């Protein structure tokens, strides 16, 4: 993957143990924690934990990807912005996600590798339901940033997942 065009300015402060990417604080976490967190939320009783997980991811990426776009006015077309989102996803370590078939109305996104699939397999083994809830929220959040729409403007459903035996993960995206 070519990174020359899109800049994710990562800085580390050794005196404070803080990492920022394009000015926003990030941290590095392993599959034991990331999958443990998802599992705890998936098993919640009394509230819909997975919806909360997806919506929160959407809110966070709606916010931070909008900030990123403000810092990069050279990204003018939706195609460029979506490619930047794909490369941010890769740079963070979440895998390879193709957003090029999406537009303001939605469409289909495809991932040929997925952190959550690899991580879940390593931690808990195979499962028979999709696991890429993070990616669903990510896609909704970045689309809302790209097309300047409010939270809740897109519904994203993972229709195929590597963890259930598909050759790739597929996400159906609809504007609401």
């Amino acid at each position, binding site marked *: 993957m070519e990174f020359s065009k899109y800049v994710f300015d990562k800085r580390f402060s050794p005196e404070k143990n803080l990492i920022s990417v394009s000015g926003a604080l990030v941290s*590095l976490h392993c599959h034991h924690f990331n999958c443990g967190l998802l599992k705890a939320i998936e098993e919640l009783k009394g509230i819909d934990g997975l919806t909360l997980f997806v919506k929160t991811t959407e809110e966070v990426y709606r916010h931070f990807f909008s900030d990123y776009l403000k810092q990069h006015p050279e990204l003018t077309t939706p195609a460029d912005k979506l490619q930047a989102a794909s490369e941010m996803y890769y740079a963070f370590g979440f895998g390879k996600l193709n957003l090029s078939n999406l537009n303001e109305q939605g469409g289909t996104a495809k991932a040929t590798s997925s952190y959550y699939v690899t991580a879940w397999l390593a931690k808990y083994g195979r499962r028979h339901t999709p696991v890429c809830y993070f990616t669903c929220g990510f896609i909704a959040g970045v689309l809302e940033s790209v097309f300047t729409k409010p939270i809740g403007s897109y519904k994203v459903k993972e229709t195929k997942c590597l963890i259930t035996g598909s050759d790739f993960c597929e996400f159906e995206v609809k504007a609401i």
Partner: protein
Amino acid sequence: MAIDVKKIISVYSIGELPRDNKGIIGVFGIYAAYNYNEFYYRIVSKTLTQASKEEAEKVENQLYQAVLDCAYYTFHGARTSMLWREIVEPMVETPEDEVHALVAFTNVFGIGYLEVVELVPGEKLVTRVYNAYDPGRYLEEYGPQPHGRCYMFRACTASYMDLVYGPPFPNGMGTFKCKEVKCRSMGDKYCEFVATKNQDE
């Protein structure tokens, strides 16, 4: 030889992390990814505030266990790596040195700067962090909290003791337990963690 904290942080914080051909970061026997600190804060705080008291307690225990797994395996992976043998091991003369080295190593992940306040060999470890992300956000959004919110540092502090003074890997996890005795989310100036032997073990 004393542990050169600055050197450990410098060595482990430079360069890009290795990835497989799918772009997944794999290092020290774990799969890692970056995410916004705000992501973790929001997911966990919303869960804890929306769930019933019983469910919230269960989630906090699950998160502590998830980080304990994370820390125990990640730190063990690090201390058995070639880089550790080359750079860190020559500084380590005692088990206490190893605790200090592991705490230093923790200070490259972007979660706030952790320091050792007190170490009683084989018995007790007290650590402190002034700039953890979550407690400030809890205070800002929900006001003073009834108990500490730093499950991440709590589990890390227990894991150092588990690895250094517990039974040999992989049988030492849970040998120590850890309490957060001060937290900025409760109005304290810093967050402080005390790990002692787990009497249930």
